[in-house]
């Protein structure tokens, strides 16, 4: 590290810290203060409520489906985009990143347009007796859409930076496709992949807008944890809402902590590649 020419004025540091305090730190503190105000015991009791438990279970289920689907899809897409040159490569990447610039509400709306009461596939679904919207499948689909790009965005830049020489080396040494993938490709991206999976999971569990559109808000059935927070809050059961919000905030904090550690690992992996010893 070279010495920095201009030290940052104390005033600027204070201003930046004040901004972070008012925008980020205080809201978080206020949230946890609300939880602690009511007492830990009472906050924990809120999770005994069957509806809250159903919400937690539903959230876990949605995440348990979305995370593997989008992880496997993301790996396949990253392999194509980072390792091959093909017509429409840029367009494919644009499509994959599209959900990032779409409002969560619209991410839910599109599924209603397909599977809702007046949707394209409504007649088919009715004949089959399957309900998608206002049911778990709709929640999963909306979550899949919203969390779609997370893994690809983590993997592609890293894989491009790493290059494909190691994989080619594995081939010349006699490895087949799967062995190359398991022994070379996957270990090389494991930290970035884990980081992507963590973010994907956090978003899957915390998504609000998209799932609120497809949920129909049936208590005990189609409310995920964020939706349950809203329901409780609007019902003037603020303490229970804060308890659940506190739980999700903890998940976010843990995710950020783990991510910071993984980022450090990834940076090490890239540095080791780029700078010769």
């Amino acid at each position, binding site marked *: 590290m070279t*010495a920095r*020419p*201009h*030290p*940052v004025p104390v005033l*600027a540091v204070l201003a*930046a810290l004040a*901004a*972070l305090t008012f*925008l*980020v730190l205080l*809201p978080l503190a*206020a*949230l946890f203060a609300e939880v602690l105000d009511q007492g830990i015991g009472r906050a924990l009791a809120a999770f005994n409520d069957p509806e809250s438990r159903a919400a937690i279970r539903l959230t876990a289920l949605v995440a348990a489906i979305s995370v593997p*689907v989008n992880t*496997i*899809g993301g790996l*396949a897409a990253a392999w*194509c985009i980072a*390792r*091959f040159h*093909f017509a429409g490569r840029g367009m494919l990447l644009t499509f*994959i990143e*599209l959900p990032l*610039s*779409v*409002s*969560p*509400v*619209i991410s839910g*709306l*599109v*599924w209603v*347009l397909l599977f*809702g009461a*007046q*949707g394209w596939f409504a007649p088919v679904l009715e004949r089959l007796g399957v309900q998608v919207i206002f049911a778990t499948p709709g929640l999963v689909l909306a979550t*899949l*859409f919203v969390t*779609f790009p997370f893994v690809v965005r983590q993997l592609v830049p890293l894989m491009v930076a790493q290059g*494909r020489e190691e994989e*080619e080396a594995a*081939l010349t040494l006699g490895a087949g*496709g799967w062995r*190359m993938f398991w022994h070379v490709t996957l270990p090389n991206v494991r930290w970035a992949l884990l980081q992507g999976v963590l*973010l994907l999971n956090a978003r899957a569990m*915390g998504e*609000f*807008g998209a799932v609120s*559109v497809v949920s129909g808000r049936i208590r005990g059935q189609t409310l995920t944890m*964020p939706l349950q*927070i*809203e329901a409780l809050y609007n019902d003037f059961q603020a303490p229970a809402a*804060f308890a659940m919000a506190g739980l*999700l*905030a903890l998940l*976010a904090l843990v*995710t950020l*902590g783990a*991510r910071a550690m993984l980022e450090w690992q990834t940076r090490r992996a890239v540095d080791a590649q780029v700078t010769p010893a």
Partner: protein
Amino acid sequence: MKGSFVRPNPLPGFGPAFGLTLTWVSLIVLIPLAALVVRPWSLGIAGVLASLGSPRVLAALELSFGASLGAAAINVPLGLLVAWVLVRGRFPGRQLADALVDLPFALPTAVAGIALTTLYAPNGWIGRLFAPFGVELAYAVPGIMVALVFAGLPYVVRTVQPVLMDLPADVEEAAATLGARPPQILVRVVLPAILPALLTGFAMAFARAVGEYGSVIFIAGNMPGLTEIAPLLIVIRLEQFDYSGAAVLALAMLALSFTMLAAVNLVQQLLARRGG
């Protein structure tokens, strides 16, 4: 098809991986978005225009895009300040402050919504400071702005930060040896280098703000025509089973957002060309 479509490559697995990818993208992203693009026209052109022309829709769009532009505009200097302090500052707790920046990324929007509302409501820690003067933060436009600035801040910080980090100190030192004073260094040396990143951050913060739903509806008050954002109006139309009306508004929002983003892109390309 493989011969011309994909450049020959000894690595295996393109066929299956590409097939899987295409299926995945089509099922989860392309087909649903196609439904969104097609649906509004079931109303006919006149119907679409009528649906968009209602005062409530116009007010919601104006609020969403106006507040988002405002929030993104606040995020740019604020994010630059935070990024600069994080990159160049040496103070205890810098790493913690750095980690805090990502919180709006990771915190579920509903949680952010009730946390911000609690803080800025008239009886909240901050809201109570303003209440005696009759200034309402929560349940009014300032509250919406706070939520949007919160959501957009990490985008600006995280796009500017790496560029600031890569900005070699010797360029500034060189400018200083050539007799430039600190403000001149900032304006003539530093700003031009980070302008593209600032623009990207602005665009990302704006896009996020326009679509933001969860945190805003808690703090907004949601009065039709006053504090009702466009995404909420989409939800309301859906609840009335007005699918086409909801799709019209959604498509309009996307079209406006992409136009904005394309404009920012264009400015960036012009900047890049000027910069050689």
